[in-house]
């Protein structure tokens, strides 16, 4: 049961992530990312994190990806132009990615004493989570709310109409 669920949703995760890279239209990439995030929510549930599974669907797959798709539609983003990319990415980037993945895989496969996950082990309830969050970590939680407030103000200030436009030239022609 656990094995089947893990394999199916890990497959969805990897498939969505690869599809994100292969698609040339941003909206297809965004939809693949939603698949990845929703499958990750199921994996969180398999690991016993029920609150995070719910938050993953609501915050990530819900709020953040809606924001992404809204911006894609608002900017009317078309297919991306395929270019050769930068030389730095080809020379330094891809070997580094392979090296990082190899090192991580070697370390992970050689860790001693890493346990197993089983469905019978029960879940961390929202009550356990909130008990620690609101007793020991109340200050970081409140600071996060200030961060969100500042982010909202920053987003409004940045996206406000007329921000950063060059006054002499009309819109749209400025970049060409």
């Amino acid at each position: 049961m656990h094995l089947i669920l893990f394999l199916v949703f890990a497959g969805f995760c990897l498939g969505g992530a690869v599809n994100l890279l292969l698609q040339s239209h941003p909206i297809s990439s965004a939809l693949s990312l939603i698949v990845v995030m929703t499958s990750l929510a199921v994996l969180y549930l398999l690991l016993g994190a029920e609150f995070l599974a719910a938050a993953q669907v609501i915050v990530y797959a819900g709020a953040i990806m809606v924001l992404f798709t809204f911006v894609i539609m608002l900017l009317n983003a078309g297919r991306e132009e395929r270019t050769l990319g930068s030389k730095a990415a080809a020379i330094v980037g891809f070997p580094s990615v392979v090296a990082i993945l190899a090192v991580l895989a070697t370390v992970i496969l050689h860790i001693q004493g890493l346990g197993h996950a089983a469905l019978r082990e029960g879940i961390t309830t929202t009550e356990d989570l909130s008990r620690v969050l609101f007793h020991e970590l109340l200050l970081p939680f409140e600071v996060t709310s200030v961060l969100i407030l500042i982010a909202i103000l920053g987003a409004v200030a940045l996206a406000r109409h007329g921000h950063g436009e060059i006054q002499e030239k009309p819109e749209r022609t400025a970049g060409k």
Partner: protein
Amino acid sequence: MNSLFSQEIPLSWYLLLSAVLFSLGVIGFLIKRNLITVFMSIELMLNAVNLSFVTFAHQWHAVKGQIFVFFVMMVAAAEAAVGLAIIIAIFRVRATLAVDRIDLMKL
């Protein structure tokens, strides 16, 4: 019925999945040529790291690992809001989303 729920799979599989997802995110960051898709690759990397946080929280039976994921989600939400606002501001001036044409910090 009991055997259905007692099946165990090693936690290293979750960590490997997390590492592969992170690498796919880095590759996407390098090869994609659309500003929004590059930004989505960053979100993919954040998600991959969250998965390993949850795995280790399960390993050590520590609730604080899960709370850290909660904070990462909050920061990601703030980051997405500000980042997309910046993308809109850039698009107003440049009328393009191709990263090759957005190579100056100056608007």
